[in-house]
């Protein structure tokens, strides 16, 4: 009876070397206040100068989501007092952002859905306030770090969709190489606007804004817990208050931070220290040409070129490194793409997940996997044995052929040898043979199993099947 409405504001820290309006470094983790120059400190008389790389990155993002990259956008000052905001205003974009009206496709439960992106604008980050022993310290290293704030339409209808959208943006900014996506370090963070309404109701309900959700898991949990809270409030006759709420992961609850009514009047106005940002068509054309293949295009290509299912293609294109790993494997193994996909999505991914590793940290390289798959394809080893080979690779052994050699895992394909094994099994199991011949066909599997067992898994299963059929029929 309730419909959920969600919109996300994602802050992606742009992966530039220097800050958006100064030459100071953006590297993470330095001693407090060692990466803040006079401009970042807001000393009297200093002036901001826009980092061109930031513009290039924002434009790349705009093109990738099929948005309008504004030929003219304007930096504005958002005025408010806070100790970690050195100038007393944040330089942001307000009325005229650099990116407007784009969209992105997401998949949830094997269904595609398009999410609208209202705008994406450039702004500078503030510093950090650190509280200790009743004192507050200010670290301005982060002040002036470039951010792209990506604002979606209220198009999502479940926490699951919100997560899918966030993951898609996360993957996209990494594809584009404009954000490292590191959520622990705060390079990629998100606020969610959540409201509910009765099914069929046209107007939106009152929304709350959930702040600083710094993992995919927290986004899902925070939204779901907030939905439950709003339903409780409405069903017990109350009304939702428009406010900012903070998600407490330890208690798994959201609680009010401050209400919007008390919010600052930011007194936005165009920053007179910066000229309007004008983007020439040639500049945009160049970026367009340099754009990498985007996730959706790659997915389509994987389905067509490799005959993969939507499911497989979606997983394999979910990040650029994984997609590259897959394509390298296919190329080097000269094996069926489906076989490669299965191994990557199955065995490899489960080991990566278990060890909490990224594909770039995989202990098995694409070329090792390819070598192994070649040995499956050319019948040197069986698929079953391959799992053991793969484990050996994962554990640090390097060469596929030496592993097979060392362990004597070579598949038995000699017809005579297999027949000998079959004969042995038949001889040992006369009762089963009789039962089979009397029509208990299910027992065929039993014989296959026995032969394989006897061969220690090394007999070629296909040959075993064929030869066994001849012998016992």
């Amino acid at each position, binding site marked *: 009876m309730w419909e959920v409405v969600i919109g996300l504001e994602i802050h992606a820290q742009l992966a530039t070397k220097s800050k958006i309006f100064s030459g100071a470094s953006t590297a993470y983790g330095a001693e407090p206040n060692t990466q803040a120059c*006079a401009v970042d*400190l*807001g*000393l*009297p*008389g*200093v*002036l*901001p*100068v*826009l980092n061109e790389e930031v513009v290039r990155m924002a434009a790349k993002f705009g093109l990738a989501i099929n948005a309008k990259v504004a030929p003219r956008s304007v930096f504005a*000052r958002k*005025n408010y*007092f806070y*100790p970690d905001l*050195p*100038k*007393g*205003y944040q330089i942001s974009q307000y009325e005229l952002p650099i990116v407007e009206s784009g969209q992105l496709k997401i998949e949830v439960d094997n269904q595609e859905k398009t999410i609208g992106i209202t705008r994406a604008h450039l702004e500078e980050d503030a510093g950090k306030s650190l509280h200790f022993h009743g004192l507050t310290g*200010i670290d301005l290293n982060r002040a002036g770090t470039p951010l792209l704030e990506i604002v979606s339409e209220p198009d999502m209808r479940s926490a699951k969709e919100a997560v899918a959208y966030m993951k898609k943006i996360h993957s996209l900014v990494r594809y584009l190489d404009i954000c490292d996506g590191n959520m622990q370090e705060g390079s990629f963070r998100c606020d969610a606007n959540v409201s509910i309404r009765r099914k069929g109701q046209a107007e939106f309900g009152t929304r709350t804004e959930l702040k600083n959700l710094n993992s995919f898991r927290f986004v899902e949990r925070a939204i779901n817990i907030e939905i439950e809270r709003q339903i409780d409030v409405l069903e017990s006759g109350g009304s939702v208050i428009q406010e900012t709420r903070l998600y407490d992961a330890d208690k798994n609850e959201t609680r009010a931070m401050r209400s919007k009514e008390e919010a600052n*009047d930011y*007194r*936005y*106005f165009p920053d*007179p*220290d*910066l*000229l309007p940002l004008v983007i020439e068509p040639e500049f945009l054309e160049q970026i367009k040409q340099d754009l990498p293949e985007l996730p959706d295009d790659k997915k389509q290509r994987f389905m067509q070129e490799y005959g993969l299912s939507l499911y497989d293609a979606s997983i394999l294109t979910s990040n650029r490194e994984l997609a590259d790993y897959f394509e390298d494997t296919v190329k080097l193994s000269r094996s069926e793409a489906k076989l490669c996909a299965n191994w990557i999505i199955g065995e490899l991914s489960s080991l990566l997940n278990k060890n909490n590793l990224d594909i770039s940290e995989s202990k098995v390289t694409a070329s090792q996997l390819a070598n192994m798959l070649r040995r499956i394809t050319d019948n040197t080893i069986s698929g079953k044995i391959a799992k053991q080979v793969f484990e050996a690779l994962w554990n640090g052994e390097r060469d596929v052929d030496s592993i097979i050699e060392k362990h004597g895992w070579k598949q038995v394909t000699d017809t005579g040898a297999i027949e000998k094994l079959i004969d042995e099994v038949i001889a040992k199991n006369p009762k089963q043979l009789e039962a089979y011949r009397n029509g208990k066909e299910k027992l065929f599997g039993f014989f296959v199993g026995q032969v394989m067992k006897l061969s220690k898994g090394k007999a070629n299963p296909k040959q075993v099947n064929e030869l066994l059929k001849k012998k016992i029929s």
Partner: protein
Amino acid sequence: MHNKTIAELSKALHQREYSSVELTRHFLERIERHNAKINSFITITAETALASAQAADQRIAQGKAGPLTGIPLAHKDIFCTKGIKTSCGSKMLDNFIAPYNATVVEKCQAAGMVMLGKTNMDEFAMGSSNETSYYGPVKNPWDTQTVPGGSSGGSAATIAARLSPLATGTDTGGSIRQPAALCGITGLKPTYGLVSRYGMIAFASSLDQGGPMGHSAEDVALLLNQMAGFDQRDSTSLNHPAEDYTSHLNDSLAGLKIGLPKEFFAEGLDPEVGKVLDTAIKEFEQAGATLHEIQLPHSHLSVPTYYIIAPAECSSNLSRYDGVRFGYRCENPKDLIDLYKRSRGEAFGAEVKRRIMIGTYALSAGYYDAYYLKAQQIRRLISNDFVEAFKKVDVILGPTSPTTAFKIGEKLNDPISMYLSDINTIAANLAGIPGISIPAGFVNQRPVGLQLLGNYLNESRLLNIAHQYQQRTDWHKQTPANFV
């Protein structure tokens, strides 16, 4: 030495008639003798001045000197100077020592100029009389009962009293030209963006422009040569090829079309000042110029427009003075809000507070469209007035200020009447065009300034016209009696 032109001083230095150290000592002695009478310096940098003078003398000896090497100057205390206090005339920055030089300071240093000190000014350049300074009012050398004008009153008085041959100033609504007029010196506000704003403490960023002040157009042209130029640290800086602003000084004025806007000669203009202007205008006619009555139909809107835009920008620019990282901090704040309120409340003067409040109001939700946005629209109309005018004439002439210097205290409690002393200068800032004020005579021993406004980047032409006038007159050579 203090009665010489920059060209004469430069020649003397190059011919070793005297050294830069001797020249610098001469001016430092004058400052010591006279500054107490007029209070035109906030900081006197005798030691560093002598060290720079010594370095300049070496450069001259090595033959590596330029036309300004070894020449003393004073910087308005709005330009940041590395290791030397930059107060901006405010208690807020009484303890502020910048870790960098303003581009203008850097450029003057690179030329081998010798900084004598930092001049007094209205607090954060907000004022037209130099009475809002935390360091006390500057007095006009021509009559120490009167104001020198503002906000670059310290620089203007310094030159008028011949305590320095050159000085820098800044002009947001007339802050170079009006004090130049009231002190009987020459001051140029360049086209917006010609001189870098980097390291120049912001009042109203879209209007602020640094410029040179001196005795004559020729002196001012030499200093402008050094101050102007593209600066990649200032996004609003113009990428305009370097010019030698002295190269057209001697061009003839024959055929020059001078526009006389009737709005500048309207009511409010002191009739005696009007008479001085009439005489000056005849001088231009004799030099071959023709006169044309023109209209600047929106000029009556320039003061109200300015007093929305400038405070709006200042309210934001001055937010950084919060007592957190530098500048004044109140004693024992009980919490963050108390820290903000008391630090700002105790360190800002009344005029600064007034403008922060006006600006905050003008930018507030619900008022933005009616005030700030409307003011920006009118600003465009005012600019268009000049575009139209410069289709008909080469230059616009009028009184810099409607009156001569007024008594200290006379207008301090009447902000509107104070604001109106900039009625003829403000439009040039709103439009971004250059303007110059030159001495054109006296009324009751108080100097009268004549203003010339030119089209964008027409500084050379303005300096040429001013120079030609100064070849025919000697108003710019007068020295106040107590400072000979």
